[in-house]
């Protein structure tokens, strides 16, 4: 007889939410029930002085952004002027529905979020400045900090959001972010997620997106921090002509476990998707990419491509890539590829034969491998250079 999950689990009890083990397929590589720490209390609202200091050392990624600040999960008014065409309502958006253990992150977020924001981008608005969503954490041991957003991009609008997580704490603390996005007809939404939490951070993120006709999601995920990170992306491709572009760089350091799980539901004909991840694993880091693409029977002419390439710098680390295609239509183009390699010795030799020291050559090759993804984002030079700066910092500390 099989006994399931009947032992008490401290992490579960503290959060009051059932946690999946690896027996739940979508959590096969990230066993939340055994890997998640125990978090029993919400972080208190920090004082103004404490909050101000928390952001030191994390310079802005875009000089012209309007940034909404959350410190330890609490919203702080900083008098930033939103760009024309963008409005915000700081009431906590309503909780997202939970459908079983696959939505565990949503369930946790529903339980622990107190603050959030609902943002609307007006019809036809061509928003010229990025909107920042900045989360900074004190990271007191055993605490949680969590937010929930709703973003509604009306038809034919264009906008850029940068959601960023920052901290330095090496103590175990939990953060969570759930975002519901609705991208209207012909609208383009750029959503850039930058993870720079401290080495003790455990982070559970989910973005759930619905795309109308000819809408475009341009999503970028840069994981460069945290101890246990799971970022989920669920996209309902619901309008013909819609396109999903997902790019990511996962920098997996020693002791870190970084999981990006994407689920694309193509529910109508003539939609396209492209996913590209480049990962670097150092030390004994564990990386995970699960990419599910579901094509409904009526979703003919779906074109979905997925690639996940990893540079594994040590024998102690690993990266698990699991592409999963569930295709019920017959006239579709779907492809996926995953590679795991070390730095190419011939490349290294060529560079050294020109006088470049081995360490520098390795650094240049690793950087080239991931920078390529950033350079193709098309979100402007300043932001791309800032992301490359975040990557450089990570490489400096994690790769010797």
């Amino acid at each position, binding site marked *: 007889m099989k006994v399931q999950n009947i032992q008490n689990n401290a992490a579960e009890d503290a959060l009051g939410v059932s946690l999946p083990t690896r027996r739940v397929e979508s959590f096969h590589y990230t066993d939340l029930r055994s890997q998640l720490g125990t978090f029993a209390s919400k972080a208190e609202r920090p004082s103004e002085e404490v909050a101000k200091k928390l952001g030191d050392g994390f310079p802005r990624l875009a000089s012209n952004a309007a940034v909404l600040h959350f410190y330890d999960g609490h919203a702080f008014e900083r008098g930033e002027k939103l760009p024309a065409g963008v409005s915000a309502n700081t009431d906590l958006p309503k909780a997202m529905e939970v459908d079983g253990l696959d939505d565990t992150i949503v369930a946790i977020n529903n339980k622990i979020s107190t603050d959030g924001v609902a943002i609307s981008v007006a019809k036809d608005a061509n928003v010229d400045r990025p909107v920042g969503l900045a989360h900074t954490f004190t990271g007191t041991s055993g605490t949680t900090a969590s937010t929930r957003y709703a973003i509604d991009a009306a038809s034919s609008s264009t906008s850029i959001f940068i959601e960023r997580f920052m901290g330095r704490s090496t103590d175990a603390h939990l953060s969570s972010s759930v975002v519901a996005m609705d991208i209207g007809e012909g609208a383009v939404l750029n959503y850039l997620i930058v993870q720079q939490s401290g080495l003790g951070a455990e982070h559970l993120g989910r973005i759930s997106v619905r795309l109308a006709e000819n809408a475009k999601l341009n999503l970028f995920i840069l994981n460069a921090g945290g101890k246990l990170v799971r970022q989920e992306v669920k996209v309902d491709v619901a309008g013909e002509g819609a396109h999903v572009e997902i790019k990511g760089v996962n920098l997996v350091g020693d002791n870190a476990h970084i999981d990006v799980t994407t689920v694309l539901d193509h529910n109508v004909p003539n939609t396209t998707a492209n996913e590209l991840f480049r990962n670097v694993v150092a030390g004994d880091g564990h990386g995970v990419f699960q990419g599910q693409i579901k094509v409904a029977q009526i979703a003919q002419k779906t074109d979905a491509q997925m690639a996940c390439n990893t540079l594994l710098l040590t024998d102690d680390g690993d990266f698990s890539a699991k592409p999963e295609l569930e295709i019920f239509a017959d006239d579709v183009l779907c492809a996926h590829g995953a590679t795991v390699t070390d730095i190419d010795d*011939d490349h290294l030799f*060529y*560079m050294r034969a020109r*006088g470049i020291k081995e360490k520098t050559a390795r650094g*240049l090759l690793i*950087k080239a*491998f991931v920078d390529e993804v950033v350079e193709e984002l098309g979100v402007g030079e300043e932001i791309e250079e800032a992301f490359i700066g975040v990557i450089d910092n990570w490489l400096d500390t994690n790769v010797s």
Partner: protein
Amino acid sequence: MLEIKNLHVRIAEDETEIIKGLDLTVAAGEVAAIMGPNGAGKSTLSYVLAGKEDYEVTEGEVLFNGENILDMEVDERAASGLFLAFQYPMEIPGVATMNFLKAAMNAQRKARNEAEYTTPEFIKKVKAASSDLSIDFNMLKRALNVGFSGGEKKRAEILQMALLEPTLCVLDETDSGLDIDALKVVSEGVNALRDPARAFLVITHYQRLLDHIVPDTVHVLYNGRIIKTGDKTLALHLEENGYADVIASAA
């Protein structure tokens, strides 16, 4: 400048001996051609000089300006003035050619305790050298060798050589993959670098390149050894008669 004495080299992985007691001396200012059929060990020799780890030296020594370079790291050999123009230049995705050139030039200058080039100095040098070699400057903004044609890759190798100003230039089949116009451009680039203080080891198996880069000495490499040495007329002899009689008379 270069003295190779009784060099024996095997492939590290399977211990097959490729270079079997090779002797060669090249003086400063000399252009020495190394000719030999496919598989003779020409590329292996060039890789061993540059320091590729796939090969293991079991005997002999290689002195470069009196120093045993076999004890030096790959990048140290380069900084001390050795340059290998690869038979098959590597494509390096994501590394812009300009960034690569700057990293290489400044790494070598740093190793020699010389001041690094500023960006304007560097750009000026690259612009001048690339126009001499009919290289479109915009090409250098692209990733190193990625999507370059065969001829463009070889020209890019000579560009690197011109910019790094080595004292010993090893050219491994620089003529392969070049049409006649590109061959002229590349040869002129090489000839422009001829200097009493600089030596060349020009590896080829066709005489054609040597019409443009006229050698002082010609050495036939066969089965891991130099089996015959002569002047430029030896190359002409090989062109007409092939390697068979030289090989037969050496056996």
